[in-house]
């Protein structure tokens, strides 16, 4: 238990650092990167919370996050690269 609480504390410190980068920017890509890392940390945090509260069902949500986070990161970046969500290609290459 003590170990899990320690790892939760470490996760919170990491979340704080990532939030600093998220607020500071300066470019958009810094923010996307920070959000993506934040998602990974949330997955870990939820798993750790599941162990701390002794309810391992929380892992289902963590798993959902791991996938959703990836989808939204790709959506954001696809948007920035191609200026639209629906368009598939920019320079003829397949995406």
């Amino acid at each position, binding site marked *: 238990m003590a170990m899990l609480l320690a790892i939760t504390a470490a*996760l919170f410190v990491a979340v704080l650092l990532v939030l600093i*980068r998220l607020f500071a920017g300066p470019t958009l890509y810094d923010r996307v990167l920070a959000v993506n890392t934040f998602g*990974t940390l949330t997955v870990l945090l939820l798993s750790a919370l599941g162990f701390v509260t002794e309810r391992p069902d929380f892992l289902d949500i963590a798993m959902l996050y791991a996938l959703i*986070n*990836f989808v939204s*990161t790709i959506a954001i970046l696809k948007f920035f690269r191609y200026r639209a969500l629906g368009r598939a290609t920019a320079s003829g290459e397949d995406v």
Partner: protein
Amino acid sequence: MDPVTIELLLNIASGIAFTVGGVFLLIGAFGLVRLPDVWSRLHAAGVVDTVGAELILVGMMFQAGFSQTTLKLALIGLFLFVTSPTATHAVANAAFVAGIRPVRLRRNESGEVIGESSHKEFQP
């Protein structure tokens, strides 16, 4: 081996995984704040996403013992293992196409790979 010894060994193993993973996690998050530009920060995020996350998940697997929980943790680890490089590459590629270049670039062979003109139309 008797169950008590096995439990002790599992606890020690998860303790080691948690410690190493947590240290890498904190260093990576610190690097995300400290490094000078988005290109170098990519690598700090890589440290968090790969070694940090996976080792912490492994530590939890040791805690859970052999059960459905372990399987779910392994699946989460697999998802992260497969998706994190793709997400990192997407950030790098989008920043590159937007015309953002690393600070104090030592060596630039991007012209060899892509013609310099091919991405001009995406300037922000």
